[in-house]
């Protein structure tokens, strides 16, 4: 049995390939992202390395792992948000429907139009509810039928009934859970294909959290959802597929994130293949 400190990249890739994963059967899966040997470094510090997996359409995929394992870094690769951090270098490839996401002439704006993001702490703009949801369509030039667009987005985010009479009110007057749903509506308004969520419920109370989780269930009918969560039970409840990331230490003690196991959620939480995964989900980690 490999231990966390002695594992090499070769070990990991053999383990994953050797056994049969319980991925969705071929007739149900359509690859949206094909990640190959992805690595991210900040100013020379390797934060993430050797990640390969596929993200499938209309499924909820969760990334779990201890803090510092690079899952937030990884998710930000999908919508080029890492580019905002100076000194961030992305190696390896991510294919989005076969196209290289980091190809030479790829426009980050086009990428973000199709791949939206919801953040950990709700961050509505200091504007009215309507203007928040309308911001995306406006900057992208989708101004026809704006009212309907806003209404549809708010409905999909299960917020319309609560705010339909006060669209001009400030977004900051909403509760935390409502603000987060507003951020989801804002993201939906530009009609993305993929929704990335970075710990969307970690700043919310349990009832608001449940609503967000129910929302994820509903949204996956029309969208592909990737969610980072540090709450394992949330991943167990909500995700169809779960990827577990962990930290390896290099020769000089540098910490790098790696992908340990990626499988159907039911498998990860009943019979994980890798001992590191089992240690983490059972709470024996660290």
């Amino acid at each position, binding site marked *: 049995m490999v231990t966390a400190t002695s594992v090499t990249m070769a070990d990991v890739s053999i383990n994953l390939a050797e056994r049969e994963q*319980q991925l969705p*059967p071929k007739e149900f899966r359509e690859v949206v992202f094909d990640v190959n040997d992805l690595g991210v470094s900040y100013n020379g510090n390797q934060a993430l390395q050797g990640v390969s997996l596929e993200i499938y359409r209309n499924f909820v995929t969760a990334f779990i792992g201890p803090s510092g394992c690079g899952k937030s870094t990884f998710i930000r690769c999908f919508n080029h948000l890492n580019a905002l951090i100076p000194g961030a270098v992305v190696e390896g490839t991510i294919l989005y429907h076969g196209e290289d996401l980091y190809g030479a002439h790829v426009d980050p704006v086009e990428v973000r139009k199709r791949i939206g993001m919801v953040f950990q702490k709700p961050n509505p703009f200091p504007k009215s509810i309507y203007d928040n949801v309308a911001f995306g369509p406006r900057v992208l030039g989708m101004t026809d039928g704006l009212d309907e667009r806003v209404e549809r987005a708010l409905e999909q985010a299960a917020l319309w009934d609560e705010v339909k009479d006060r669209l001009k009110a400030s977004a900051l007057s909403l509760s935390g859970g409502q603000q987060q749903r507003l951020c989801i509506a804002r993201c939906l308004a530009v009609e993305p294909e993929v929704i990335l969520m970075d710990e969307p419920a970690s700043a919310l109370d349990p009832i608001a959290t449940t609503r967000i989780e129910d929302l994820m*269930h509903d949204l996956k*009918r029309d969208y592909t959802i990737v969610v980072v969560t540090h709450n394992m039970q949330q991943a*167990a409840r909500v995700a*169809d597929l779960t990827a577990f990331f962990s930290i390896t230490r290099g020769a000089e003690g540098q910490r790098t994130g790696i992908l340990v196991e990626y499988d159907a959620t039911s498998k990860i939480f*009943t019979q994980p293949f890798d001992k590191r995964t089992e240690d983490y989900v059972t709470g024996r980690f660290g």
Partner: protein
Amino acid sequence: MSRADSASFRGLRVSFQEELEALQANLQEESELVLRSLRGSLNALQQRDVELADEVIAFDDEVDERYLAIGQGIEQLLARQTPVAVDLRLVLAVLHINLGLERMADLCVTIAKLTKLTAELEHDATMVEAFEEMGSRAEEMTRVAMRSFAERDLAGAESLVDLDEMIDRANRRVVKHVLELGNDPELREWGLRMIIVSRCLERVGDHAVDIGEQTAYLVTGEFREFTDASRPDE
């Protein structure tokens, strides 16, 4: 892949409550299968029908399939939803009842096998009739147990203890009866084998009482036996 898995892979919304409902429905269906098995084994015993006995033995595969599926469903539910309070008690109760039903089916198979073994031997008609009575009582108890579970009926569950009395008494009388069967070796062999059949029927009754205890646990949250094993024999 379990039913829950494939449903979620198809993108359907399978909510936690629906999963619980499905699990219980599966359990009820399993009990129907067990009752069919029981009736089949009793009829085979009555009519000394070897073919029917074979069918009963083959039928056990279906019960086992159902048993495994429910077991997987429970595992999934526990792993993914981490149920608490009444939901947790429900899942644990389903787990126990599932086990009990599978054992009941196994006991029916044993009866069927013994029927085959003794088909050509001499038999005692009165005992055979008594077995029919015991068997019918066991059937009734199973129905009462499953219905009480479905309706969360504590009184119904507790009534199973009294219903079981009859089977227990009949079981104890069987040994006496076999000793009085006489010296015919065939009859004696049949009698010995029938003791096992009687024991099987008594165990079926006990499992039904266990199901009642699970209903009580679900409703009250208390782990308790309905009867005290150290109660002196009557």
